[in-house]
């Protein structure tokens, strides 16, 4: 098996034992990027030279007898919404074109500390707003399963890089589903940790009460290893949870559901769901039952109002967060000809630097927060948020985890929803409740839809700080399905 097809855990152990050098592994992935990224456009920046330097430093430390962690020397693709001191950081926006941050995000710093080799920065919907990467100012990323389709979003560059074997691991951020939905439609694993479990410091803010960094990988154990590597309390983030990281790696190794109570969310089915998605979901539930889990139907009535509440809360926070792009301290400045005022320059810069979806959300948020509408929209959405948290709480009295399809359809064709924001927003229907309540949730591959042969994801939702349960159930599903398929789902993907 070639180096690019190995798991992160395997690579880490081969590098640690000196059987393969980190430089060889980095070079194999850089070659793969050269080979396929013309088709995928997963990367906005590839740091070939710095990747080889980082890998060499790991090899030197291993040669010197240093005891490094399980992921030392393993390559990773990093979503271009985390600041990196040695690479440009754009958030997929023209307003930050060419920006070199003066500091590393906490997640970036911890990747480096774990010895991970950062190959480059991946494409995303501008400021992580979208479900397809079509909102990137730097062009769309394509799905390795079908180049005419989207890789999901907003972390679509990261999902395509891992599904396309350009990296064994990548980072993402999940505000309304931006890790789980792209993982689902590219046939890989994507995890949204408990809100506050992973640091937002140096993550360019979209909606601060929802934004959560998390891992992508081709298998559950690799995702858990990465999760553990960058999570945990960070004093630089005031909403970081000061508690130990749940035992995600152990849970991923265990992968046992015997005696577990699993709730099927009644509200996530029916109209708008692709038959092939529902069929694979139903099979997954039957599989879990056959593995010894107790299946319970659970009703969470408030989940049906999560989508509209989210599209008031997230834009409200975005309209406030994105006020920092004022053309004064960093980033683009347009129209400063000596005659215009700061305010005029600001308005011209923001009009030129932000794309259509970002402008829509800023104005929608400004509207929802304006006096006269605040109570009816933003205030009411915050109450819905409470109701959703209560639904979760009641459900987790009955069951240990909840399951649903990750997203109602498989990957849609590029362009199909680009001019229809409402249709685009529906991609996040099942993922949003966990963001609003702060819960942990994962997406694992559960098969291909009969209609189009494209990947379907199973979402597993756990209580706050119950991240280990997501990995435990995800690993059990993965093991059973891979036995049935004779390999991982990605082995069925067409050759790029």
């Amino acid at each position, binding site marked *: 098996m070639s180096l690019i097809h190995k798991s992160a855990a395997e690579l880490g152990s081969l590098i640690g034992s000196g059987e393969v050098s980190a430089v060889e592994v980095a070079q194999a992935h850089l070659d793969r990027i050269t080979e396929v990224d013309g088709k995928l456009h997963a990367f906005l920046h590839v740091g070939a030279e710095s990747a080889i330097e980082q890998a060499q430093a790991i090899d030197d430390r291993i040669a010197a007898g240093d005891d490094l962690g399980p992921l030392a020397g393993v390559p990773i693709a990093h979503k271009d919404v985390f600041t990196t001191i040695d690479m440009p950081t754009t958030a997929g926006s023209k307003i930050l074109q060419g*920006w*070199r*941050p*003066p*500091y590393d995000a906490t997640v970036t710093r911890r990747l480096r500390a774990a010895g991970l080799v950062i190959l480059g920065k991946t494409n995303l919907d501008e400021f992580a707003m979208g479900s397809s990467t079509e909102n990137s100012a730097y062009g769309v990323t394509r799905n390795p399963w079908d180049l005419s389709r989207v890789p999901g979003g907003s972390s679509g560059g990261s999902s395509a890089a891992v599904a396309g074997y350009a990296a064994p691991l990548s980072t993402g951020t999940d505000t309304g589903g931006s890790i789980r939905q792209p993982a689902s439609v590219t046939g890989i694993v994507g995890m949204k940790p408990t*809100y*506050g479990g992973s640091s937002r410091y140096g993550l360019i803010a979209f909606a601060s009460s929802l934004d959560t960094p998390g891992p992508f990988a081709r298998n559950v154990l690799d995702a858990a290893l990465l999760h553990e590597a960058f999570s945990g309390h960070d*004093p630089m983030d*005031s*909403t970081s949870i000061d508690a130990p990281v749940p035992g995600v790696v152990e849970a991923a190794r265990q992968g046992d559901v015997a005696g577990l109570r699993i709730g099927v969310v009644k509200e996530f089915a029916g109209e708008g769901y692709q038959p092939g998605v529902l069929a694979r979901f139903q099979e997954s539930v039957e599989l879990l039952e056959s593995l010894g889990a107790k299946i319970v139907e659970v009703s969470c009535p408030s989940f049906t*109002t999560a989508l*509209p*509440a989210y*599209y*008031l809360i997230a834009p409200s926070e975005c309209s406030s967060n994105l*006020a920092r792009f*004022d*053309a*004064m*301290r*960093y*980033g*683009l*400045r347009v129209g*400063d000809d*000596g005659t*215009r*005022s*700061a*305010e005029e*320059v*600001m*308005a*011209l810069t*923001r*009009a030129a630097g932000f794309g259509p979806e970002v*402008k*829509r959300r*800023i*104005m*929608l948020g*400004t*509207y929802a927060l*304006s006096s006269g509408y605040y109570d*009816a*929209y933003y*205030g*009411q959405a*915050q*109450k*819905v*948020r*409470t*109701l959703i*948290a209560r639904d979760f709480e009641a459900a987790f009295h009955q069951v240990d985890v909840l399951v649903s399809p990750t997203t109602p359809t498989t990957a849609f064709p590029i362009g199909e929803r680009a001019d229809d*924001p*409402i249709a685009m927003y529906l991609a996040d229907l099942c993922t949003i409740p966990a963001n609003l*309540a*702060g819960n942990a949730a994962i997406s694992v591959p559960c098969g291909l839809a009969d209609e189009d042969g494209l990947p379907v994801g199973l979402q597993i939702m756990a209580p*706050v700080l119950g991240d280990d349960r997501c990995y435990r159930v995800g690993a059990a599903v993965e093991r059973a399905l891979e036995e049935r398929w004779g390999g991982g789902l990605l082995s069925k993907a067409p050759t790029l």
Partner: protein
Amino acid sequence: MSAITRDEVAHLARLSRLALSDDELDHYATQLDVIIGSVARVAEIAAEDVPPSSHALPLTNVFRPDQVRPGLTPQQALSGAPAVEDERFRVPRILGEEA
């Protein structure tokens, strides 16, 4: 009845510091009308007695110790600035000609 008028969108664009063209205003007025129409159903949910949640975690007032620690140097802080003068951010005028 439309949820939002073109004049309201022009007002929102001003508040948002977005210098939009007339064509853009028309375009966004149509789209925002549809979006607001679809999210407006949150207003119909009976929730008089429900307290609002601004956040998923029950955290209040997280403070760091009041200790001096290293920050960015002026060069680092100014490294991405569109215009710099005398170790400061150079900005367009902020007051009108009359002032």
